[in-house]
């Protein structure tokens, strides 16, 4: 009786499975893009770009420019999260061939063109950030950024604020805590560096020195 129940349970689990198969390119592209994100944030310089190239190659094989745009925007978002510049020429070419307002809104946000962002098509999680950025309200921004559930999105929001708006210790600390909680070395070092600059700007030499010492210690192999 016990065996019969087990067999029935196994059959039930199998019956729940979908019969549709995922295309290999899609699976591989998703996997490579995910690896790219992980490698980028972990600061593995050598292996980062090959993952993106592989992801791009797989997506290109499907002729889906929408997905290719998502891949490039992901790349730009990661650079923003790590407080780095990016070249959006590839996105511009793709947008010209296949325009999508939501992609353009996202790109405007990453580039700090807050007034050009169409809030209706922007992902909901960044709505609070956009509002506070337009209002240049630091308190609201810190609250809205901290409220973002997804750590990467939170870090991107921090990056957008830190790069294009007056720096604030609270937002920088959110970025540091998010990066350190997830072991993302590349953004962590960038935020610590930015925090040190912030302390130097505000004249807090001791904190600046302590931050630099911490950063040097972390960077040492």
């Amino acid at each position, binding site marked *: 009786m016990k065996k019969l129940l087990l067999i029935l349970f196994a059959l039930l689990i199998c019956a729940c499975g979908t019969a549709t198969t*995922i295309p*290999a390119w*899609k699976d591989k*592209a998703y996997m490579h893009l995910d690896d790219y994100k992980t490698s980028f944030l972990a600061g593995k310089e050598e292996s980062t770009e090959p993952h993106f190239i592989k992801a791009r190659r797989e997506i290109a094989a499907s002729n889906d420019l929408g997905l290719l745009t*998502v891949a490039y925007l992901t790349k730009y978002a990661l650079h923003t999260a790590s407080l780095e510049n990016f070249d959006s020429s590839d996105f511009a070419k793709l947008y010209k061939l296949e325009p999508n307002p939501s992609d353009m809104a996202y790109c405007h946000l990453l580039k700090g063109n807050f007034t050009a962002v169409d809030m209706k098509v922007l992902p909901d999680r960044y709505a609070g950030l956009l509002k506070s950025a337009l209002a240049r309200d630091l308190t609201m921004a810190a609250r809205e950024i901290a409220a973002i559930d997804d750590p*990467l999105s939170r870090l991107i929001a921090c990056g957008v604020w830190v790069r294009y708006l007056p720096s604030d210790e609270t937002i920088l600390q959110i970025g540091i805590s998010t990066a350190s909680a997830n072991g993302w070395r590349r953004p962590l070092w960038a935020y610590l560096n930015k925090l040190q600059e912030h302390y130097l700007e505000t004249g807090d030499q001791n904190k600046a020195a302590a931050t630099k010492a911490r950063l040097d210690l972390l960077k040492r192999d």
Partner: protein
Amino acid sequence: MTMSREAKVGLFVGYTAILVVLALLYLAAGKGVFETMHTFTLSSKSGDSFTEGMPVVFSGFNIGKVQALELNDQGIVLIKIKIPDRHVKWIRSASTFILYRPLIGSASIVVNTPNLKSSPLDANKIKEVVIINDINDAIAKIEPVLDRLTEIANNVENLTYNLSDPKGDLNRVLGNAEKITTNLASKKSLVEMAVSDEESVKALNDSLKKLKDITTNVDRILVKVDTMADKTDNEIYGKDGALPQINTILKDLVRKLQKLDQTVDNINKISNDTSEGMKDFHILRSDIDDVVNSLGKVVKKLDAIMGSKKAPEFKVP
């Protein structure tokens, strides 16, 4: 007188019978039935090719035949020939008997009597038959000819091989002859032919022409140098002269070059090792690809079995 019918028939039958007998007797006499026959015995070590009824030939004519073949106690074959009386004159004591086996045709015993005036052959005397075998003789004669022919064929083969070989003597000779004739045709000098370089010969000729001028100039220079040498000797060979300094510089340079030589050797070795290692890189890459593909297939099959994998959703972070 009248004869009765029975008497007439009896007379006819009697005459007919007499005629038949006479005819038979005539034929038998013609065939030599009543002729005296002489028998001679010949011997041979082998009975091969002897048959009963075999003809005995003298000067191309049949003069008798073999009557019987026997084997005596010594293992010698005895051949008894029967010669009619009219032909017995050809059989003399000087006669020789030859078993002739032609290449084509049947065998026969040939009687050869060089001296017909010799005494008649004694019937009790046993003469040995000499065997002439055309086939064996022909083979024996042909064998050396065949050997020679094989040698000739081998030589011809060697010759043709040497002639056809592109690196063979003949082709080399022809190639050299072609080069020589080409050189002769282009009217080159012997020096040019020797060094095979027209430019070199021209340069040599020019050099020879200029040599005289150069020697004259050198003589003049030497005279000047002699006068200068006295002055410069001290500057060059002195304790602080140029040569001792150059010597030390050269020694230092040699030491450094030796070190550099080792470095270059090491670099060569490293580059060789690297190039050796690089040869296997594409194979290694292929192997890695195979492993990755296999793992991917396994994962895909597992996903298909489990059916739990959702389609990936691409969205900006």
